[in-house]
């Protein structure tokens, strides 16, 4: 190139683009991960939210074989998106308990009527206290709990259709 100067802006832009692309595509670990992965669940007890459905505590999650704990809310749209996947998991025999965040019985019942009901137990976490003690910072999140009440994995965000088989495999591996 006889005249390098006119190419400088392009080069500058390409460098910027490369750096941004590196920042974007590198799976940067910026998520608030639960400190609990690999550790036992904290002690907690949640009252039932809807009549006829038992609440949830550390004890009910221990000694019952591996299961999923789904943190959800009726006001959360991604939770609607993941509902079909939870139903598929239920159909595959995976037991699922739930913690409803900042919710009311009426709203949750309506949510379950519309989107299906995969849950065995639903705990009422009105002020997000248990959610936060689990190290979960949003909805939906799903925890895989082993038979001894230990957190094995944390899935952040809605469960997508292609995640279901992996989840079932993870669950079976614990049995």
């Amino acid at each position, binding site marked *: 190139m006889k005249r390098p100067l006119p190419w400088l802006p392009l080069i500058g832009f390409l460098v910027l683009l490369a750096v941004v692309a590196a920042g974007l595509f590198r799976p940067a670990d910026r998520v*608030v991960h639960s400190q609990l992965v690999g550790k036992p669940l904290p002690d907690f007890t949640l009252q039932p939210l809807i009549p006829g459905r038992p609440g949830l505590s550390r004890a009910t999650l221990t000694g019952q074989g591996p299961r999923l704990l789904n943190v959800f809310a009726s006001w959360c749209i991604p939770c609607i998106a993941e509902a079909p996947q939870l139903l598929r998991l239920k159909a595959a025999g995976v037991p699922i308990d739930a913690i409803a965040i900042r919710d009311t019985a009426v709203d949750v019942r309506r949510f379950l009527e519309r989107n299906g009901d995969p849950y065995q137990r639903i705990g009422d976490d009105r002020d997000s206290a248990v959610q*936060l003690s689990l190290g979960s910072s949003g909805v939906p999140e799903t925890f895989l709990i082993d038979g001894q009440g230990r957190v094995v994995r944390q899935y952040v965000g809605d469960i997508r259709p292609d995640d279901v088989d992996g989840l079932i495999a993870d669950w079976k591996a614990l049995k």
Partner: protein
Amino acid sequence: MTAKNQRLTLVLLALAAVAAAALLALSALGDQAAFFYAPSDVARNGLPLGKAVRLGGMVEAGSVRRAADGVTVHFVVTDGRATTPVTFAGIVPDLFREKSGVVAEGQFRPDGAFVATNLLAKHDEKYMPPELAGKMHETKTLEQ
């Protein structure tokens, strides 16, 4: 002034300006970029004194005390391995409570305590990286 001279002068001026900007920006970045610390980082690497940082972790259960003036709060931030005492004068965010996540902006004192100028509590409508949690994030998502 001939055309060639003028072009040369302008290019030199532009380069000088860019260099000055880069220098200014880099020196200010060195001082002012607020790095993110957890209490155990501080325990491990020592106190980052004399610069604005962000401290993140959980508010320890039973640690929140309000001072008599009604506007100052004292609490302890923990990440499970180490703890840092924090003082904050101001209106705490609605989602600030014990056993919940918090990001405090401010400075460390030589005695290891942290004086916060701003508190960001995590809110859970949407996920976000810890350094963006809190009210400011709501403004960021406004006009996406």
